[in-house]
């Protein structure tokens, strides 16, 4: 287990280094988020959005940003023919762990960008910051997990881009619905305990999807 984690960290550090050199995924998800929030902000003018609309918009931005960038971490390996080198050297699940950590960091970084944008540009008032941050962190974990496992499945297929969104949406729907509900409660000033059920659902969902990923990945990863 320790070896798996340490080798996963090696893959994670490599992906982080490659990302900072190419900025492909960062640009893709960052530009989508900023453009969407800016467009909505200008179209609304002085109108303030209700917490339920804000919560939905927040997670829609995160979902579509994830769709535009998170699959890249696996697709790049196949497009650049570097996947076989990983297969030769790394245990399959270490690759999965590395890519999962990378997507968590990428999506977490995106949230650090869009939360201030929501507050500044859309005038979002967060009633309970600890609850908001807990919901965001849990949602990011769940969304990154779903995206990583689906990206691993579609990376070896032909029409990867289209498949990724089509396959991710139904699996990510429970994450979206739960995260939107919990975020609305946090925006309205509900306590952390009020989001407890949503946090439990997101945590359980993450564990289930990651377990499925571990069980399937060795078969998926080997052509």
């Amino acid at each position, binding site marked *: 287990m320790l*070896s798996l984690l340490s080798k996963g960290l*090696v*893959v994670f550090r490599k992906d982080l280094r490659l990302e900072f050199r190419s900025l492909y995924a960062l640009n893709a998800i960052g530009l989508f988020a900023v453009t969407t929030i800016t467009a909505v902000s200008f179209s609304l003018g002085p109108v303030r959005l209700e917490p339920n609309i804000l919560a939905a918009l927040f997670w829609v931005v995160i979902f579509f940003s994830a769709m535009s960038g998170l699959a890249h971490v696996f697709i790049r390996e196949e497009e650049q023919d*570097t996947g*076989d080198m990983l*297969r*030769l050297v790394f245990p399959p699940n270490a690759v999965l762990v590395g890519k999962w950590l990378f997507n968590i960091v990428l999506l977490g970084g995106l949230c650090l960008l869009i939360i201030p944008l929501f507050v500044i540009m859309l005038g979002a008032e967060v009633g309970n910051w600890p609850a908001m941050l807990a919901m965001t962190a849990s949602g990011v974990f769940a969304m990154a997990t779903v995206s990583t496992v689906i990206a691993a499945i579609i990376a070896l297929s032909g029409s990867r881009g289209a498949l990724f969104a089509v396959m991710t949406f139904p699996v990510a729907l429970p994450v979206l619905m739960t995260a939107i509900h919990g975020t609305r409660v946090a925006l309205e000033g509900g306590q952390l305990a009020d989001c407890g059920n949503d946090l439990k659902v997101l945590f359980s969902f993450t564990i289930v999807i990651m377990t499925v990923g571990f069980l399937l990945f060795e078969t998926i990863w080997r052509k």
Partner: protein
Amino acid sequence: MDLHVENLTQRFGFRTVIKETSFVLPAGQSLVITGDNGSGKTTLVRLLCNLLTPTAGTISYRNGKGALEGEDLRGRIGLVGPYLQLYRDLSAIENLAFLARGRGEKPDAQKIRELLEKVGLKGRGKDPLKTYSSGMLQRAKYAAAILHNPDLLILDEPTANLDEAGKEMVLAVVNEQRKKGSLVVATNEAEERTWGEQHVVLA
């Protein structure tokens, strides 16, 4: 380590590329795989490296203690092939350090420098691979394949893209490997066919 291939068959859809092939390569021996274009040389190499799952039959690696699998096996094979690429946005040194860490070893800067010198990349180790020519990339692949002193070195089209000096480097690597381990070469070059004691001809 010994390589045992028994009744190996590989199909892609309805097309059978490799049909019931069997051979044994004892530790320390060399094998040359030949055959026309499309006869399945690369497919066989990929199967031997566990990069493909065979349709039927078995491939097993054994040493005195029994069958080798997973982590035990991964650290014993080195591969050079046209389909195997290193990270072009990383330098040769970064690529080799990454692979060493992947095998659970601490990267040895001195060893990596010596290895790059050996394959003819002295002074270019810090340059990103995207600035390399195709011949230099092939040299970097050799460094990656022999970094961990593999028991079995597998070479698919070993001298592709290489100039005369590069071919001499390959010959030196091959001779060294034949002294300390096993070698599998997939080729149609007349000179390279002489590198093996055993031959598998694919139809």
